[in-house]
């Protein structure tokens, strides 16, 4: 665990259909992805102090493994938790929903390499739509 840089806010993303920067003052750094994290987005459950997004990915990988082994996984329902305490369960549900339903959230945040494996939609003026005429 190290102290985060004060110049950037918390790197975790708020939102479900649309992702935006949290931006709160970071208090620590994620042990897994090394991004600055605020208190709200810190997950302390059993995996060291990681951010809720890394924790969600780890839990989902575990659940996917259990599913492969024929075990039952938690139902696919949004958490019934007060919004102030919902960061961790919501990150887990969000990750699961995106994977299972193929939903690509709209990205209204600063670029973040830790989301490179996830499909998100953002505006790219230089984006080349490609097609059969390219080659």
């Amino acid at each position, binding site marked *: 665990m190290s102290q985060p840089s004060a110049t950037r806010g918390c790197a975790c993303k*708020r939102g479900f259909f649309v992702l935006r920067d949290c931006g709160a003052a970071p208090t620590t750094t994620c042990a897994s992805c090394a991004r600055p994290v605020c208190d709200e987005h810190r997950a302390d459950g059993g995996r060291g102090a990681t951010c809720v997004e890394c924790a969600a990915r780890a839990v989902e990988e575990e659940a996917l493994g259990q599913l492969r082994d024929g075990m039952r996984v938690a139902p696919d329902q949004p958490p*019934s938790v007060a919004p102030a305490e919902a960061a961790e369960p919501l990150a887990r549900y969000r990750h699961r929903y995106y994977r299972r339903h193929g939903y690509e*959230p*709209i990205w*209204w*945040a600063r670029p973040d390499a830790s989301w490179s494996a996830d499909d998100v939609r953002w*505006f790219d003026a230089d984006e080349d739509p490609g097609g059969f005429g390219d080659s």
Partner: protein
Amino acid sequence: MSVRQQVRALSAGDRAILEAQLVDGERPMADWFATFAALAGVDAAVGAGRARTTRHLCFGWLGLLVGAFVLLLLLPIAALVLLLVGLPVLALLHGRARELRAIDLANGPMETLPPLLSLLAADTPPERPVTVRADLREPTIDAKRTGEQDRPVTRPVLSLKWTFFANPWLELRTRFADGAAVRVEVTEHVRRATRIKTNPRGKRKLKVKHKRRVQLDVQVAFPRRRYALAPVAPGTVSAADRERVVEGEDRIVVRERAVFKETGSGGAIQPHRIVDLLAAAYRRVEPAKGGRL
């Protein structure tokens, strides 16, 4: 904690909602969640209390009648004493049952709203007021009855009556952080079939069945300054049964509707059905400019 203590622990506003069983107001999402979570806690205690009171009433009446009959044969004065003591106790229990029934909320909204509000809070700025109009009364009360119909029957069915109820129990309006105006509506239509049957010996039986059709409507108005209409990929399967897109000058309005039917009435709606409709609306647009919120 007893039901009375739980009701007393509610704030004045929440207690007023519990008594009226109607919600209509504007508050931040966290406040709504706190209200519905507190009401759900009370409602669970009320449900358990009602079950307990019903059990006590059944055993009470049975014990009183059997005891009074036996004592009447053996010692009539004791039977009189038993009735004098037992009847007021049962009257008190009936009063308690009536009291609990008056504050028992419908299960559908109480189980659906807390997770839905928790999820929508993620996209709504914390200080922004959210409009919620909810009807927490049971779906098959007289005030929601819309019509009746006598159906043709053949023996052994002696009569069949359909009673219809319309229960629009939720309208929620909020504005997400990206400027999208979101409206969620849930309407439940219930058909109660009351059937009287007879067997060859002439014994009659009354059977009551409920079927419901739940209509979920989601409307999202996207601001044009941020979004453009996205082309629909061929072969895309939508969660919605009906979709309408209207392009205005300054906004794109996407309306999604899903309908499902099931037996019973007043049950919870899986919140993921509403999440799927909102996701279907967001799939119809793409960002039209860069930047951050």
